């Protein structure tokens, strides 16, 4: 069962293109959309939400066609973005009174509880909020109408490390109900990757992979060794590589193969998502 299904989404701009992206967000899990800046993550999310019209492709959210059933869908999703869509000159209280009637299941009680938890006062004007406070406000709105799917675009970009950790707990709480799902985008992989179940990696407008994080981290590995080990055939095994005067460090996609090939001659380390992102982006540039 998928909370969100994207099929062959394409959008061409003069400078870049989101190219034929297909992606599933499984119900009951957290999916992280990762990739460097400016590769199309936000464009993809805007297309999911009907804020950017795709050239081609389809989006289904919670079983409903987008954009045909957009009104129904938006009752059931929560959106958190680092862009602030709210009226800057209003206070949090006034803004809430404006938003609440749009939702069938709006809970003032829940909203106020989150304001308290996030240390936001209802009297604060939106324009005076810091970037992190705007994210918190937008999170409070997203969590106050029993959303089944939370879509977050770079939610942690304005947040301090303390609240980022608290956010992990908050998201895990939402997922205690196995009908709820979360998708978030980020370029800081060390953030939410602890609790992400699935990772979708976007680079240069294309989907590189979308799979369970645990299997990714088991499959990829970092190889470190002496430059003398490298020849043109060996180099082909690497997704990306960094060579210096004192040795090389590179990412391989098949840990077992690398272990058999290099044996004791190299150091084989666990790859992090950041390693995977870095070397794939770098490698892609070299071969392109």
């Amino acid at each position, binding site marked *: 069962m998928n909370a969100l299904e994207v099929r062959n989404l394409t959008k061409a701009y003069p400078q870049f293109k989101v190219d034929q992206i297909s992606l599933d967000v499984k119900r*009951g*899990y*957290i999916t992280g959309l990762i990739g460097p800046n400016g590769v199309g993550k936000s464009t993809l999310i805007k297309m999911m939400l009907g804020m950017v019209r795709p050239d081609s492709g389809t989006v289904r959210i919670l079983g409903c066609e987008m954009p045909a059933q957009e009104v129904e869908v938006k009752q059931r999703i929560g959106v958190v973005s680092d862009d602030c869509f709210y009226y800057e000159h209003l206070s949090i209280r006034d803004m809430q009174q404006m938003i609440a009637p749009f939702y069938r299941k709006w809970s003032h009680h829940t909203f106020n509880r989150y304001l308290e938890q996030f240390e936001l006062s209802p009297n604060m004007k939106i324009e005076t909020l810091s970037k992190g406070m705007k994210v918190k406000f937008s999170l409070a709105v997203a969590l106050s109408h029993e959303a089944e799917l939370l879509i977050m675009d770079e939610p942690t970009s304005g947040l301090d490390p303390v609240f980022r950790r608290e956010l*992990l*707990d908050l998201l*895990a*709480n939402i*997922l*205690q109900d*196995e009908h709820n799902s979360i998708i978030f985008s980020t370029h800081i992989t060390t953030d939410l990757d*602890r*609790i*992400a*179940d*699935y990772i979708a990696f976007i680079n240069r407008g294309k989907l590189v992979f979308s799979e*369970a*994080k*645990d299997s990714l*981290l*088991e499959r990829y590995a970092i190889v470190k060794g002496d430059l003398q080990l490298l020849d043109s055939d060996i180099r082909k095994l690497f997704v990306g590589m960094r060579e210096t005067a004192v040795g090389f460090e590179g990412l391989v996609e098949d840990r077992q193969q690398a272990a058999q090939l290099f044996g004791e001659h190299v150091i084989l380390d*666990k790859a992090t998502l950041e390693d995977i992102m870095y070397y794939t982006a770098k490698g892609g540039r070299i071969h392109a």
Partner: protein
Amino acid sequence: MRWRNLKVIISNASSDPIYIQIMNQIRQSILNGELHAGDSLPSIRQLAKDLQVSVITTKRAYEELEKEKLIDSVVGKGCFVSGANKEFIREQRMKRLEEKMIEIIQESQEIGMTQQEVVDYLTLLYEEEQQS
């Protein structure tokens, strides 16, 4: 909510994948008798939240333990330490006991006790333990 006797500590420095670390520690708690048949375990989602790891990770750990017949998951009720594998658990505990006994024998030999002295001493302690 707290679960009696369940301790799981994840190390980021360990070379073992996280699901293996979870599995090993729960298995250990069952085998050394800290957890008993019928004890309830936190749900997959609760454990993921407590450890700040993904749901898939805790799910896999539980699935592997289920395959070993050490835990049962009952739909709608949660996960429990299984009673199905009593013999295996008893065997494992007997093995640990045996190791401890061998240790006792070796130490008693080192300080020059005879077999009969060890047996007498053990009998004495056993009786005291029962009375208390």
